[in-house]
């Protein structure tokens, strides 16, 4: 144990320290912040964002980025609602097919995203941004600007049924987080993400099928976006073209603030969890101590810049666009 305070160590643990400091800060100002009820509320608002953040983490590990989440989540949520209504309106009956169907569809949408990026050879931030717009447009087209309501008690139990004080959806989100962790740490695909992000040339030379890994990464992200869509529907009881609105800013902020380096190769799903919790604690804490919520976007924006600055090893970067 030579020097604990190395740059690497500091970067690794800084997000967690920030999270703890924030929790301490808010609970000193208002003790109600530490209540179980408040944490349950926090978990409800964080669960869908966590799923989007986990999905996009895989992409950022590869050094790419996926900005399609808003459109993807909206479109998938709307399709899920229509499918559920068409199949009888309850997941207790025939409607249970709707859930795996939407997860599969999410993966397909993600794969299309990745395919466009890889085959047309255009930067992923632009191809995915464009696909996000397509998704939002598709959601408007399907709903005609209306709201699709779901009043299935069984499905809504994700929100209403509480276990140890937390709603079921928090556990579902945690289960999918574990799934993401297993994929990241114990599968060949997960290792290949890190290989591609660490250095694409090297990965290619070592026999990694880089293009396939990229498309699979986007497909995986799409899968997690569809989980986020499901949780959004469970949370709100409805779907419309703005169901996914604002998720882009929140999820990218979370992942970056959590310590996943934009250059790829560093970080993982646990960083995404810490990042989502930081963002959720800031949002929730500001309301609890009575600061108006409109400052959030500005604060988060500045936080992102600080996080990227801190996580960039400037000696290794020639220039940025």
């Amino acid at each position: 144990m030579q020097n604990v305070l190395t740059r690497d160590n500091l970067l690794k643990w800084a997000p967690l320290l920030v999270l703890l400091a924030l929790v301490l800060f808010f609970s000193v100002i208002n003790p109600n912040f530490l209540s179980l009820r408040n944490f349950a509320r926090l978990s409800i608002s964080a669960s869908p964002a966590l799923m989007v953040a986990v999905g996009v983490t895989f992409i950022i590990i590869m050094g790419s980025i996926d900005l399609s989440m808003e459109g993807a989540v909206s479109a998938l949520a709307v399709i899920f609602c229509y499918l559920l209504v068409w199949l009888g309106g309850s997941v207790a009956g025939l409607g249970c097919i709707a859930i795996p169907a939407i997860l599969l569809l999410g993966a397909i949408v993600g794969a299309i995203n990745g395919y466009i990026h890889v085959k047309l050879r255009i930067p992923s931030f632009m191809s995915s941004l464009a696909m996000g717009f397509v998704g939002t447009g598709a959601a408007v087209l399907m709903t005609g600007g209306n709201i699709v309501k779901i009043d299935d008690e069984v499905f809504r139990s994700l929100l209403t049924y509480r276990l140890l004080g937390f709603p079921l959806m928090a556990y579902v989100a945690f289960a999918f987080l574990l799934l993401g962790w297993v994929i990241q740490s114990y599968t060949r695909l997960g290792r290949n993400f890190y290989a591609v992000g660490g250095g694409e040339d090297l990965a290619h030379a070592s026999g990694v099928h880089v293009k396939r890994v990229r498309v699979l990464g986007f497909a995986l992200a799409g899968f997690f976006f569809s989980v986020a869509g499901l949780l959004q529907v469970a949370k709100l009881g409805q779907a419309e073209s703005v169901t996914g609105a604002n998720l882009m800013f929140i999820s990218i902020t979370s992942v970056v603030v959590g310590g996943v380096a934009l250059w790829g190769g560093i970080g993982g799903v646990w960083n995404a969890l810490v990042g989502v919790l930081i963002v959720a604690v800031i949002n929730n804490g500001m309301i609890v101590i009575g600061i108006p919520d409109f400052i959030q976007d500005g604060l988060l924006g500045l936080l992102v810049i600080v996080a990227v600055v801190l996580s960039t090893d400037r000696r290794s970067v020639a220039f940025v666009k």
Partner: protein
Amino acid sequence: MNIERIKPHLPWITLAILVVIVSLIDPNFLNPKSMLSLAADIVPLFIMALGITFAIYIGGIDLSAQSMANMVTVVATVLLASMGAWVAVFCVLLGALLGAFSGFVTTRFFVPSFISTLAVGGVAFSVAQWLSGQRSVSMDAAQRDALFGWMIGRTAGIPHELVIAAVLLFICWFIERRTVIGRNLKAIGAGELAAVASGVSVSKYKIAAFALSGGLAAFAGLLFAVKLSGGAPSVANGFLLPAIVAVLVGGTPLTGGVGGVVNTMIGTLIVAVIRASMLYLDVNATQQQMFFGLILIAAIALTIDRSKLRIVK
């Protein structure tokens, strides 16, 4: 006849073909009066696209333009009573300052421009919500007409917006083609490392490009506020996508270095004609997003210079 020789001419050929198609479907389209008002309606979008052109010209991107315009509609409306005509100067300077901040963060801290501008967009959105109290605000009609009425009137049937657009286009064209700044921006877009090696102060010019982008986005917001006689934190939503599309279909590739503001004018006209034709087909603005998203992908794929991207991330 190879594709590389035709490529620079593709934008105006596309525009001509689109105009012919639309006017065959609806002969009224060629009516000068409707064409003029069509062009006048697109001016705020055009001004925003002019700004984004500079950011893309150097190989970056500005995703904050829409939030910037949103913020300015609110700032201009709220401060009109106390500042009078100076509010216009203030707004444009504010936009340029925020843009310069994006550029500063990008160049000095190595934050990719799509992240830094997204973050600055978040800041602008917060300012807009704070100043407006999360409602829409409106201008005093008499004061607006007295100070900024000249922006939206008509002289001899020509909408004044078009004159403003022409003046701004000329200024931007002059900066791009006739000044040292423009030359250096082109050098940076064509190859940043080569520009550094040639002794160009790259950081300075990149910050300038983002400042231009921010200032023009603010001007777009100002014009929008005058047109609507008010503002709101989300009034310009839906502008970002068509503005970026206008730049790219005009022929300025995402990799930068070629194209420029005149191309953006053609690109904006293409967007205007597509929008007009969609009205005939009864496709509303939000649904158009779907279509413009696909056009965006096609335009990037057609224009991007892949020799500059060894690895596509």
